[in-house]
């Protein structure tokens, strides 16, 4: 029982971080129907910047995080303004390919600048932990969950009450009509990319926390947010959160209870199996919108 609770709580904590990463995907998809394959690369850069500022430049951790978030948000906006705005009206496929290219270039760049070794994150929590009963919680986990919830709540308020929430969905559905009703489509897209950069950084910080550390493979870990958004329903922030948490729990539980006959590292496959199973029952994901058929 203790083992189950331990795994479930670890899984939940990991899932909350996945939810943040998945939210980054969901925001860009919601605003432009583009699946941003560079989300993992943004996360990687975010984690490395925090590491650079906090562990190597000696800035306080909170300041390092704020700086990294600001830089990534600005880079997201700039990328949209300098590169993607030229692609408005191009097939979505073109834009998706650009994000894949960006991802490859950025990941290679991080490798070239910082080398392949693990680095220090520079966070104040390290491996510190506490017990509730016999279940162990690390402080990184706890702060990860808190940050995820604060950011997700902030996003939902933004989505529901700011004028850009509705504008994003309109811009994705029909850019030309959105322009005609006064929605500055490019600015809305830039905003989505800025938000994606900011949440990627926070996700990166907690993915790189104990027992992990900033390393070039972090971006791949972010790919696990991918089954999360698919099973949650593309473009649905609620789906991103629920999907992220499900994937985190599934992954940690399978790694804890891995039966011998599945071979090693079955936990890396399990999330995708869950995703496929969900899609068989609900082809648009748990919270996805099914396009209405016209007869």
């Amino acid at each position: 029982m203790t083992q189950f609770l331990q795994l479930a709580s670890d899984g939940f904590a990991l899932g909350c971080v996945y939810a943040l990463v998945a939210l980054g995907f969901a925001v860009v998809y919601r605003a432009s129907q583009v699946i941003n394959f560079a989300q993992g690369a943004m996360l990687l850069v975010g984690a490395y910047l925090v590491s650079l500022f906090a562990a190597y430049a000696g800035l306080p951790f909170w300041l390092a995080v704020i700086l990294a978030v600001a830089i990534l948000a600005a880079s997201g906006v700039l990328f949209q303004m300098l590169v993607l705005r030229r692609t408005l009206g191009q097939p979505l496929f073109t834009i998706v390919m650009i994000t894949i290219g960006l991802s490859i270039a950025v990941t290679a760049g991080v490798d070239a600048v910082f080398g392949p070794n693990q680095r220090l994150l520079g966070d104040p929590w390290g491996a510190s932990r506490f017990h509730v009963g016999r279940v162990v919680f690390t402080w990184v986990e706890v702060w990860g969950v808190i940050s995820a919830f604060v950011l997700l709540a902030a996003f939902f308020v933004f989505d529901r009450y700011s004028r850009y929430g509705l504008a994003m969905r309109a811009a994705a559905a029909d850019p030309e009509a959105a322009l005609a009703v006064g929605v500055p489509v490019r600015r809305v897209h830039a905003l989505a990319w800025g938000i994606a950069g900011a949440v990627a950084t926070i996700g990166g910080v907690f993915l790189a926390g104990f027992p992990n550390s900033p390393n070039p493979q972090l971006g791949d870990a972010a790919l696990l947010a991918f089954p999360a958004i698919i099973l949650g329903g593309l473009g649905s922030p609620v789906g991103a959160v629920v999907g992220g948490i499900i994937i985190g729990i599934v992954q940690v539980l399978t790694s804890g209870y891995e039966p011998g006959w599945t071979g090693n590292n079955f936990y890396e496959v399990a999330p995708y199996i869950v995703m496929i199973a969900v899609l068989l029952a609900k082809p648009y994901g748990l919270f996805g919108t099914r396009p209405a058929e016209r007869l």
Partner: protein
Amino acid sequence: MSLLRVQDLALRFGEVTAFEDVSFEVGEGELLAVIGPNGAGKTSLFNALSRVYRPTAGIMWLGDHDLRSLRASQLAGIGVARTFQNLGLFAHLSVLENVLIGRHHLMRAGTLRAGLWWGFAAREERLHRGKAMEALELVGISQLAARPVQTLPYGLQKRVELARALTMEPRLLLLDEPVAGLGAGERSEMTDLVRQVHARGLTILLVEHDMGMVMQVAQRVLVLDYGRVIACGSPAEVQGDEQVVRAYLGQELAGPRAAG
């Protein structure tokens, strides 16, 4: 004083001229209809006015705003609203959301304000929701507000679009074939709606194929043929114009096609 002034406007795509030397004015509170045979340049003119295309030459002013210097998304802010010939609705949104988005340019709560002071944002959101409902009531479909817009029949979707344009609180309403694709009953209802909206003092520029409708609602009619203005005057004058009759030869011109 005219609200909309267009002078020597031209639009060319390479060697192809969509229209040229188009000049006209629309007075405050007037309803001007633009008609012409297929391919006469009506929709191109409409798209130039709504800044989907950039005119090649000429000037166009709305009050003291130079329309050429504005981007499409800025037109809403100076009071231009438009509808689309083939609908420009947002498929996954509800009817109410489709109308509410028309108030984007009137809303103030941006990212920061919604994040830090969401009491303000929530109050503002309620206010605009109310305005959007009023527009839906005006076009007679407020009971459908919560429905996904794509589940509505075409005729009602056209009304959603009209409601959205109205809720933008425009000074100039551009209507692109509002009765195209509608059945006879829907046509006369939409015609009544346009007349009602006009009666409230709104200035309207209407592009329409349906002569019956045009003759019922328009105060002045501008006739395009092969991208040029061939006549401009009251419905009666235009109907009697020899050049217009020739342009429309073989087409039903005089009799109202829409029932009623």
